[in-house]
């Protein structure tokens, strides 16, 4: 912001700011002091909001993580005890593994499907308008609502859509209580979540394909390239900026995912589908072990920062 404020001035203006104060030329330090207040004044509301909504809760969470709190009992200072317990907690280790599986698969699937659909749609933009709108609409529907739809699909009895479809296809022997089996529940969740999250990558990547110069594509046609070759060698590589943005957004989203897991399995069976985010919810709000939950939250925050900081730095370098 301050950069914008400084660079938005024209050369004449900059000169005049350098000679403010009775024609005397300003040193760089004095010029920074003279210019800074305006920039900080503009930033102040955002900084205040950020401090109130992000910094303060974060500090409270860090403080909380050093306390042993059980239910409504009196808190006891616990030092790094919560972090030590987390490291020894088999359920937390399981949650870390589930989070890695969940995040990798849902991001890869949702972005992969979105990318594939965006490439197809880019070949026939008008004809694919309605499907694009419908797929994106799924992204706009609450995860809790789509969760209940998926419960109807994965129901363990013959009334479940998937089981009844299998029955209709003569594959009734494959019918299964999908959400009650630790082996299948995670994959059902991944399928449900990825489906709902495909809309955004489709939209972002499709927009990237529409930014590709028509001249490049027309030149390829003139040179005799087939539609498949155009898609593979021109549209796909040039859509990569959109893919990177979609990967970043969906990765962060899947790290924080909660609603789908809550509605479909509640973290079960036997805690097998708990991600770190869900583990944090369970410990903090079901067990009310707020200190322990805060420690898990900080681990999740670290994971989010590890993912997001390099991506933000990379994006900042690209745009500047």
């Amino acid at each position: 912001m301050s950069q914008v404020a400084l660079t938005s001035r024209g050369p004449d203006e900059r000169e005049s700011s350098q000679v403010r104060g009775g024609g005397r030329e300003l040193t760089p330090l004095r010029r920074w002091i003279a210019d800074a207040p305006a920039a900080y004044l503009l930033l102040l509301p955002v900084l205040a909001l950020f401090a109130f909504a992000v910094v303060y809760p974060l500090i409270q969470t860090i403080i909380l993580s050093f306390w042993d709190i059980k239910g409504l009992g009196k808190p006891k200072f616990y030092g790094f005890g919560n972090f030590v317990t987390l490291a020894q907690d088999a359920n937390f280790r399981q949650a870390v593994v589930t989070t890695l599986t969940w995040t990798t698969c849902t991001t890869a699937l949702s972005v992969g499907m979105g990318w594939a659909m965006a490439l197809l749609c880019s070949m026939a933009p008008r004809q694919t308008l309605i499907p694009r709108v419908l797929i994106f609409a799924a992204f706009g529907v609450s995860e809790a609502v789509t969760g209940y739809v998926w419960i109807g699909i994965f129901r363990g009895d013959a009334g479940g859509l998937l089981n009844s479809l299998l029955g209709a296809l003569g594959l009734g022997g494959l019918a299964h209580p999908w959400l009650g089996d630790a082996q299948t529940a995670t994959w059902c969740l991944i399928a449900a979540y990825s489906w709902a999250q495909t809309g955004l990558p489709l939209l972002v990547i499709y927009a990237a394909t529409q930014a590709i110069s028509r001249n490049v594509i027309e030149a390829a046609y003139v040179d005799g390239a087939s539609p498949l070759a155009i898609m593979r060698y021109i549209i796909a590589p040039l859509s990569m900026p959109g893919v990177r943005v979609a990967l970043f957004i969906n990765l962060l989203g899947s790290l924080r995912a909660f609603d789908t897991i809550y509605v479909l399995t509640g973290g079960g069976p036997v805690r097998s589908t708990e991600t770190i985010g869900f583990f944090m919810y369970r410990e903090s709000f079901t067990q009310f072990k707020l200190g322990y939950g805060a420690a898990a939250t900080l681990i999740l925050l670290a994971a989010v920062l590890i993912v997001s900081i390099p991506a933000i730095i990379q994006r900042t370098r690209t745009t500047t």
Partner: protein
Amino acid sequence: MTTKLVPQAAAMTRRALMVGTSAIAMLLMGGQSFAADISGDLVLLDWAAGSEQDMIKALEDGFMKAYPNVHFKEINLTTQGDARGAIRAALQSGEKADLFVNTWPAFRKELADAGMLRDLGPLWDSAKIGDNLSDSWKALGSSDGKVYGVTYTFGDRSAMFYKTATMQKAGIDKQPTTWDEFVGNFKKLSAAGVTPIGIGAKVWSHTEWFESIYEHLNGVQKASDLAAHKIPWTDDSVKNTLKKWAELLKAGCCGTAEQMLAMDWNDAADSVLVAGNHGYQIIGMWVNNIAQTTDGLKEGVDYSIQQFPAMGAGHDNVSSVDSKEFSELTSGSNQAAADAFLAWVTTADAANIVAKAGLASPSNKVDSSLYGPVIKAATDAVAKGDVQFVLGDLLPGDLVDEYRVQLQKFLQDPSDANIDAVTAAIEAKAKTFD
């Protein structure tokens, strides 16, 4: 025997009658004045949903009819599964309420220890609540010797719900009273395409079976000792209970572990009472209310209950019970109205509202003719036997969670080796609360 009154005595009687009538009139007027003095907003924190919430609203309406200057405000928490987390969050975040609905004795103690509940002992005496509720209900609403809860409904948690059409389909004319008869009927039910027992193990309701078997094998005292961790979870009584439960599983009682773990208690209730895919379910009496109001079923005709079968271990006359109570929160600002409500909720008016909703009332003023056959059978069973509060609701903090999760692991693998592992895990967690 007839008694002839002499004139003087008759005059005295007339005077006595007048004095008595005047006293009653004054008392009634005083009562009205008392009711008029009670006013303002009365805030209730609850987590009821559906038809149960309708019943609570009916109680509120009944109370406001008696105390027209009071206005109920409800803080209704929307939760799934165990509601304690949401209640703690609400209270910790500063929600203030006069009354609170509770069903967990361990949670009552947690709230009382945190200074959030009012001691209702003085009110119990001054409002003569004991005239309507027996001492056993007072004991049930107490923690560490102080009364904190006034029970307004209770349930027989050793009752097995079943659908009459399902039993007819399986050719079961008479409900089993012994364990052998019960297990023997599994073949008939399975042959009719019915899974004998519906266990919704997704969150917690699988523990009902452990608790009923435990109490019938070991008695209520031992169950109470286990809840208080006076005996370890690795005790033979626990292991033998799980082995008995494993016999049921091996007899094909309940489908696969995956099927049980995919079902919640309400899925199991639907499967037993509506779809008829499962034979029996042990669950709280609130299902009686749901079956009538939501599913449109006729109590005693479309469905009924059967007490848990006798196991012949000398403890067949036991019932696991649950209850719901109103407590007063210290954060509330209208103690007078809260006190009046707690006294009113034990009266005939309130008890009959509960009974009409298809639930059991602990009040001795309830008109028992309002009970349907299911509630009648449940209240009779509780009245004549030894009772033990639901074990899971007596366990503190996250021990209850460990208990539920470990019993889910038992369902996945009911082998002796896993029984050792499961009981050791619960014991390890229980030790952290000693």
